């Protein structure tokens, strides 16, 4: 892994410090939001982050009709609403017991998944007999969704480095009853693939700045240096993804973050080093990526990448970008 891919020094303004103190953030984070959104919209974001993220589930229509699932859960006292962003998504408005402790969950009828996270697999558009590589697959939300969307007809190679999280991945794939997969434990940058794959998903390890609504400790848990260090790892993994995918193949990069250091900076860095790669438009609802940040200019095509904001889309903060490797 190389050094930082972007050099930044952020001096929080008085307004940023004031808002940071009021909402309990590190001041540099708020300064970044002001840079991205302006002061007024930053206040909206910070307010939206105070609202807990609703619990959402993804119906596994590979093994159950989604109306039947809703009927079964409602009969047990759950209140469900459709999640308009994602066709298989349901918002759990009321739960008499934990939604992760029902017989329906144990039978693999659904996966507990945050709303923006549910959108990624749709961009992969998995088709029968394609080989799809998921480079950071555990605990398996997107991996199982790729298998679900293809009706278990893709060949999924799912990789993760964590032994503990690998058990969850295996458990989730088995619970949801898929069989066209190979799980590999290890560093996905060092796979030594003998041939290229059709598509790659890289849901990169991230600062988790996007899930403040679920985990408010993220308001203060990561320094700017931590984020810059992560962005170098993310760029390294995305470069590996470019090498793994075939010509004409698709890479979907995502990260649960609003930090441009982990989003547009990573994409821009890889575009500069791989002229055969280009960004293609997304089909999911999103706000455009940012092409300038604290005076740093990114490759202009990063505007085709997508951002999801809590105060605009009602989701966790999220970054997603779809790339194609030209023949």
């Amino acid at each position, binding site marked *: 892994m190389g050094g930082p891919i972007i050099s930044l020094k952020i001096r929080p303004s008085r307004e940023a410090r004031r808002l940071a103190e009021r909402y309990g953030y590190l001041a540099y984070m708020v300064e970044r939001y002001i840079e991205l959104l302006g002061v007024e919209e930053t206040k909206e974001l910070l307010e939206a982050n105070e609202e807990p993220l609703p619990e959402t589930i993804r119906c596994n229509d590979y093994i159950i009709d989604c109306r039947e699932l809703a009927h079964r859960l409602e009969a047990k006292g759950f209140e469900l609403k459709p999640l308009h962003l994602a066709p298989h998504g349901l918002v759990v408005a009321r739960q008499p017991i934990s939604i992760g402790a029902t017989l329906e969950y144990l039978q*693999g009828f659904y996966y507990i998944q945050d709303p923006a996270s549910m959108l990624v697999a749709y961009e992969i558009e998995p088709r029968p007999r394609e080989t799809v590589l998921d480079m950071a697959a555990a605990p398996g939300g997107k991996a199982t969704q790729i298998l679900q969307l293809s009706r278990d007809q893709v060949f999924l190679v799912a990789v993760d480095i964590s032994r503990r999280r690998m058990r969850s991945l295996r458990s989730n794939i088995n619970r949801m*009853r898929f069989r066209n997969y190979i*799980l590999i434990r290890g560093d996905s940058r060092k*796979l030594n693939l003998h041939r290229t794959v059709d598509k790659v998903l890289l849901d990169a390890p991230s600062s988790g700045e996007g899930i403040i609504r679920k985990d408010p400790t993220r308001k203060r848990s990561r320094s700017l240096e931590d984020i810059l260090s992560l962005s170098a790892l993310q760029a390294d993994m995305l470069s590996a993804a470019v090498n793994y995918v075939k010509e004409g193949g698709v890479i979907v990069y995502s990260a649960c973050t609003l930090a441009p250091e982990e989003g547009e900076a990573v994409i821009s860095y890889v575009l500069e080093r791989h002229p055969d790669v280009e960004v293609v438009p997304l089909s999911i609802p999103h706000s455009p990526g940012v092409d300038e940040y604290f005076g740093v200019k990114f490759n202009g095509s990063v505007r085709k990448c997508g951002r999801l904001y809590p105060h605009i889309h009602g989701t966790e903060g999220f970054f997603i970008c779809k790339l194609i490797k030209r023949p």
Partner: protein
Amino acid sequence: MQTDKEAIVRLEKLNAQEKERILAFLEGLGYPGLLDIERLYALRVRGGKYYNVFEVDPPLSRIVGITPRTPYSLGFNAGTLDARSLGFRPSLPLAFRACRLCRAGVMDCHVLDERGAAIFTYGRDVWPEHVIAAGEGLRPVISRQGDCLGWGILISHDTNKYLHPLRDLGWYLRRGG
């Protein structure tokens, strides 16, 4: 497929003796076609007490060689074989497959009432008053509504009879991660 004899973990086709043991288990259920014996592979860990057994379709088996790394898991998880005794312990995915046959009336299963289903998925023994119908010995277990709950074995001890969970769905919460 992985054939390196020195590897710590190896993926290999089952040998004749191992196939025989699994076939005997399937015949005991009265449904030898529940697994395709010729497509079974074992993931052998050097010094391991048991092997994970997977049913792997030919197109997927061709993908295995995409990387020199041995898989952690793949295909249809059929169960485990004890490395010494070769005793076969069926998996929860195999229970899901077998339960379909219970619901279709093709295979005998243990059937539990609501209370029995809850007790079973906590990994606890179920007393006869909650067993609506019992098959012989080790069988898939379903609820009155037909939901698959796992594998259970009917045990007779003196005058007592109870259903002991061999694999129950609650495992996904307790151990599955």
